[in-house]
């Protein structure tokens, strides 16, 4: 397929890997964070870390939209789903995320009308087909899915669908990155920037990373050659003593982002003062809620939710995995009590989660020789 096959060329991959090898200084350890869960998935799927010198370490970041949802939000969703007359809709991955007393899938088994949708538009369609029921969409995700929710809310308003509302759990990418950079746990040398988030927000919001923290950022695509080239570009910046935002994914990401998407998001959403992230705690101005103009379509206004903060299970170390402090397999319950079939933590739920990606693709090749 165009835009795909040419970025999976093994020979070119080997050539970029050799280039990477020539750029690393022996004795220096390089710690690079891939921010986006899609990158984590590709890295394990294609074995990209096995092509890298042993002193180039990839650390998995907080960019999986499912993994960062705290248990209390799941409980809130389940409470709405159990309300009489409600059809609760969400993305499939979200259904398996454990709350304090089971997941949305468990709630569905217990009788709640919970349906998997592929987009908020599907949820709106269900609302139009069921005018006597209240249809709630559990909106999650970064700036990639937020425009979709915003456009659907505008459409619901324009088409007059009074029985549709949204439980907004959208988050933004910059505040957690800043929190990670401020964290004393983690010393990073550079970032593989999120590709599709950047189609919306553009490259400019990441400029604070080189300006304030002197670290390079390279926005990258999701094919194996994209990721390898991004790593090569970061190492090239480090070798030259440069730090700047570069765009490896120019075929998709315009430097200024999608202005229409930013406008519609600004109209429909506003920043919450703080939002709780799984494992990262509360981060200021990192979550979105519906703006006053759309408050009548806000499920948290329309229904009562417990809104109770629930601590993560003690055995689960998703927080440390999300911050890149430990590798998935270093978690005490990885692959034993916590598996994709029976996840304890969110990182094992989504295929973009570091634990699930590692469990599915990478666990057989942990040991490798030092190059």
């Amino acid at each position: 397929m165009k835009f795909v096959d040419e970025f999976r060329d093994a020979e070119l991959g080997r050539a970029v890997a050799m280039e990477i090898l020539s750029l690393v200084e022996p004795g220096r350890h390089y710690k690079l964070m891939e921010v986006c869960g899609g990158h984590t998935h590709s890295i394990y799927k294609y074995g990209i870390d096995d092509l890298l010198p042993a002193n180039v370490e990839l650390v998995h970041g907080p960019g999986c939209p499912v993994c960062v949802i705290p248990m209390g939000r799941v409980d809130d969703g389940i409470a709405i789903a159990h309300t009489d007359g409600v059809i609760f809709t969400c993305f499939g991955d979200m259904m398996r995320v454990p709350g304090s007393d089971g997941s949305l899938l468990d709630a569905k088994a217990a009788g709640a009308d919970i349906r998997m949708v592929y987009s908020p538009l599907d949820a709106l369609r269900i609302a139009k087909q069921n005018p006597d029921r209240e249809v709630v969409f559990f909106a999650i995700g970064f700036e990639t899915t937020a425009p979709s929710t915003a456009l659907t809310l505008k459409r619901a308003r324009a088409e007059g669908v009074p029985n549709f509302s949204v439980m907004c759990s959208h988050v933004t990418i910059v505040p957690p990155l800043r929190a990670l950079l401020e964290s004393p746990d983690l010393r990073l040398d550079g970032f593989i920037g999120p590709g599709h988030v950047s189609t919306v927000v553009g490259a400019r919001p990441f400029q604070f990373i080189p300006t304030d923290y002197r670290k390079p950022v390279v926005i990258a695509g999701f094919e194996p050659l994209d990721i390898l080239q991004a790593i090569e570009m970061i190492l090239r910046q480090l070798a030259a003593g440069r730090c700047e935002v570069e765009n490896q994914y120019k075929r998709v990401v315009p430097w200024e982002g999608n202005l229409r998407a930013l406008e519609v998001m600004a109209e429909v959403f506003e920043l919450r003062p703080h939002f709780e992230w799984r494992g990262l705690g509360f981060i200021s101005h990192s979550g979105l809620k519906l703006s006053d103009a759309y408050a009548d379509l806000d499920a948290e206004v329309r229904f009562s939710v417990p809104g109770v903060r629930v601590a993560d299970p003690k055995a689960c170390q998703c927080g440390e995995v999300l911050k890149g402090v430990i590798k998935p397999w270093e978690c005490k319950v990885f692959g034993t009590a916590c598996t994709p079939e029976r996840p304890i933590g969110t990182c094992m739920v989504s295929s973009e989660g570091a634990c699930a990606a590692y469990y599915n693709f990478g666990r057989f090749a942990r040991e490798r020789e030092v190059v």
Partner: protein
Amino acid sequence: MSVGGDSRGSHHCITCGDDGVPMTVVRVDLDRGLALCADEDGARASVETALVAPVAPGDMLLVHAGTALTRLGSAA
């Protein structure tokens, strides 16, 4: 189609809406601001096109959660 995996040979997970899917426009519904699009396996879906309009059959779009975020191959 698989759930939670990628037995489709593609790199995306169909259960997670937050995943970019390259799709080709098949037919355009101008009145509703939607386009019928097909992915690489021929699976079709209605896609919101407000952020990239106007679109025409044959255009390739990057679709997230049912909304086209950008055109493929046209970014500067």
